[in-house]
């Protein structure tokens, strides 16, 4: 399974990428998109919305059910991936690239350090199922 080493991760299977000095881009991991299978709808937060780390801010829907996407860090929604409106399947096709959800301008820069590294995220899959 692809877990890019330059990204940070959450227990709820979001990934976070630094973009310049002021933004953190957020999407869902390869594992999450595989579990969801056919993504058919994504609901994104309004730009400018203030969010808290751990707060449900977006929704992704498979054929079967709707799932919350949580803000990995606190801050303000800076941009959203409007392409997902007409092409929700990008989440399946390119989870770490074109399938990104939104970018946050963080208000608590220390929160980045608390996110999981790729290695720590990979370890969460070693629990016997």
């Amino acid at each position, binding site marked *: 399974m692809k877990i890019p080493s330059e990204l940070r991760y959450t227990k709820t299977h979001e990934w976070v990428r630094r973009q310049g000095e002021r933004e953190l881009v957020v999407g869902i991991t390869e594992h999450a998109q595989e579990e969801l*299978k056919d993504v*058919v*709808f994504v609901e994104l937060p309004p730009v400018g919305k203030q969010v808290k780390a751990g707060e449900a801010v977006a929704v992704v829907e498979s*054929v*079967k059910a709707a799932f919350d996407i949580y803000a990995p860090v606190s801050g303000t929604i800076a941009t959203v991936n409007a392409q997902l409106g007409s092409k*929700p399947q990008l989440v399946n096709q390119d989870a770490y690239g074109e399938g990104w959800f939104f970018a946050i301008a963080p208000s608590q820069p220390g929160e980045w350090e608390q996110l999981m590294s790729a290695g720590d995220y990979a370890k969460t899959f070693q629990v016997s199922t």
Partner: protein
Amino acid sequence: MTETTTLHTTALHAEHARLGAKLVDFHGWEMPLYYRGIIEEHVAVRERVGVFDISHMGQVLVTGPGSLATLQRLVSADLAKSADGQAAYGLLLNAQGGIVDDIIVYRLTAEQWLLIINCGNREKDVAWMQRHLGPQTTLTHISSGRSMLAIQGPEAEDVVEELVGAAVSGMGRFRIRAVPGRSDGWLSRTGYTGSDGYELFVRDQDAIELWHRALDALGLQAQPAGLGARDTLRLEACYRLYGADMDDATTPFEAGLGWVVDMAKTDFIGQAALVKQQQPQRRLVPFEVSGAAIPRSGYAILRESRRVGQVTSGSFSPTLRKGIGLGYVETACAAPGTAIEIEIRGQRHAGLVVKGPFYKGVP
């Protein structure tokens, strides 16, 4: 997900695991939700052919000289109209007219009837029917050691002919016949998908062999399909799902199943209660949602900002590429063409009551 109880498995469980199916707990049965993806499997059934393991459903035999009389009392449809080899959709009703289960009743002979009952209702139905068994009637729950396969889609006929080694094109909808060379094996032209198709009721060892042959019959490569696609397919066809769209407290008239109830027939359980309930306060209606939003079970249905009902089944329709559903609304809002709103995560989305079905591929 934690496993606290051992789930039931079908004879094909190892085949599902080998195909990499995503397995889920469905009413205590570990069943495939999908193999490759719900949409892919849905489309395979609509355009080609899919094969489902539906062995979680219950098979019951009712036999004896009193079998017709017993079933006439237990089932809402008039089974006196059934000929040998004919199937009827019917309801088991309680004394209040509530739906105990929706079932298919196959008349094999005048004194031998095969009933297919819902997985989640197996024990309840068998106990209910045993309690109301008339004289000279025997009821046998024959599910153990037996399987059920559904082969559905426009190419189902080719696959089934290959499997049973006989022409089946002359077989009408809702007909059943013995499978040559398979003891206690039956083939019917029925299904729960809205596409044409067949169902096979056979012993476990036969099912495993037929499953393998179906997957590569004639090079058609029937797509194994899971319960996820079964659900989206049945919803497009507006087939009700027991436990979601109806239960013991729902009457057939509320559920839009009045056509399954023969009120002219003499004395079946629930009939007296239903006489007064033919004009219900609420009705189950199919509806669609505009835009990309997807309705889900439990969401509120509004009419001019007033709550008038609730969604009982909702999904993305792979055929229509939009959100569709079934839900109960006040009777005044039940007419096709009525504008409604569905409340999804606090936002209201425009919707429309429609006549349904959303898809009709059955002759």
